[in-house]
């Protein structure tokens, strides 16, 4: 009944990486938009908006992603809102990533010297133009490295989507492991694939960080 861990099993695991990639892409797109809104709300001059954003961040940074996925998916359904796993995953990962990116980007926005904002204000530029042309472009340069760093965490975090039925990399590994009983081969392969997906991102993040610190040293 046990089948050996062979080329076929290896390929099945490799193929599962597509779901990991797809989930990461969704999370990142959703989190990118949500995170920007949260970050802007966090630095806004409107107090209720700031507080709401802070509450949002507290809740979604303060609970495990696993629980968020579970409650969004099964919870919505028992309340009679039939949602499919893709929508649930999109929602949960977006909320999760928005909270983290929002917090990262808030820091980057605040790291832009206040004199920049003042100079823009003194020139008569209004909120939208100040953000669009002065603050965000400078914040973006600082943000690249930590953002890519978070993307790496997110790629790995998508493995938790297994709980709502996604057979992504980690889950596929468990399934194959149950059929082959070769845990070291299986999880070694899984680890290697994650490494291949994440390492280039990490390298990129570090290159960006270096480039940035050199640019600011001058």
């Amino acid at each position, binding site marked *: *009944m046990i089948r050996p861990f062979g080329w076929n099993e290896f390929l099945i695991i490799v193929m599962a990486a597509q779901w990991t990639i797809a989930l990461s892409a969704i999370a990142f797109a959703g989190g990118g938009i949500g995170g920007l809104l949260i970050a802007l709300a966090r630095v806004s001059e409107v107090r209720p908006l700031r507080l709401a954003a802070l509450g949002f961040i507290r809740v979604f940074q303060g609970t495990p992603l696993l629980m968020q996925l579970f409650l969004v998916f099964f919870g919505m359904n028992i309340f009679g809102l039939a949602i499919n796993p893709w929508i649930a995953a999109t929602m949960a990962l977006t909320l999760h990533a928005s909270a983290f990116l929002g917090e990262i980007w808030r820091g980057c926005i605040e790291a832009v010297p206040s004199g920049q904002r003042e100079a823009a204000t003194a020139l008569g530029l209004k909120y939208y133009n100040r953000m669009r042309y002065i603050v965000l472009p400078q914040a973006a340069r600082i943000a690249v490295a930590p953002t890519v760093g978070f993307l790496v965490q997110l790629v790995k975090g998508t493995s938790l989507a297994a709980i709502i039925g996604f057979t992504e990399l980690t889950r596929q590994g468990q399934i194959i492991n149950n059929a082959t009983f070769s845990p070291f081969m299986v999880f070694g392969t899984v680890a290697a694939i994650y490494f291949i997906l994440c390492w280039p991102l990490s390298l990129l993040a570090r290159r960006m960080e270096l480039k940035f610190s050199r640019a600011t040293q001058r």
Partner: protein
Amino acid sequence: AQTVEDIKSAGTVKIGMLVDFPPFGIMNENNQPDGYDADVAKLLAKEWGVEAQIVPVTGPNRIPYLQSNQVDLLVASLGITEERAKSVDFSEPYAGISIGVFGAEDVEVTKPEDLSGKTIGVARASTQDTAVTKIAPQDATIQRFDDDASAVQALLSGQVELIGVSNVVAAQIEEAAPGRFNQKLELSQQVQGIAVRKGSDELLEAVNAFLEKVKADGQLSAIHEKWLGTPLPNFVAEGK
């Protein structure tokens, strides 16, 4: 509550099934759900003239899947127990396994009291979890893993001395490590049922009717023969 008519008019029946529980549920070489449960599920769908949409579930989340309407039925090696019967409604048995405590040749265990001071691995939320928890003395340590494979791995790597598993998994341990482990205790014969949401009486009746039919005409037995090498055991065929 859902009825067979609903399912027939939808044209598909969504069936939750384990895919990490060989030989009942596996992913085959083509990465498709397969195994005893899969064949039963397909047979059921054929009987009702609808398409079977198989949804892979895991041990811990299979009941939430059913409760939250993600699937219509579970053909997920779900052992019929009293506690579970509070959450779902069970059909007549469609399969059965016997559960035992296994361990290394040289570990001396002949009766439940001998488990005293030992560590026993089980798959969390499984029938064997319930059974071992019931008989183990206070000072035995029960370690709960996410699935049978992890429990088996814990046994093989020496992290636990004993594990509670089904005879089917035990056969696989024998394949993986011939002669090192044997059965210490037989805990229970566990029958497994097809589960529906609570209160879906009409649907449950239809499932039972189907089971009666395939038990009678030998189709179920043939599937059992195919996956487990023996005909359907009597304790299953005769009901609870």
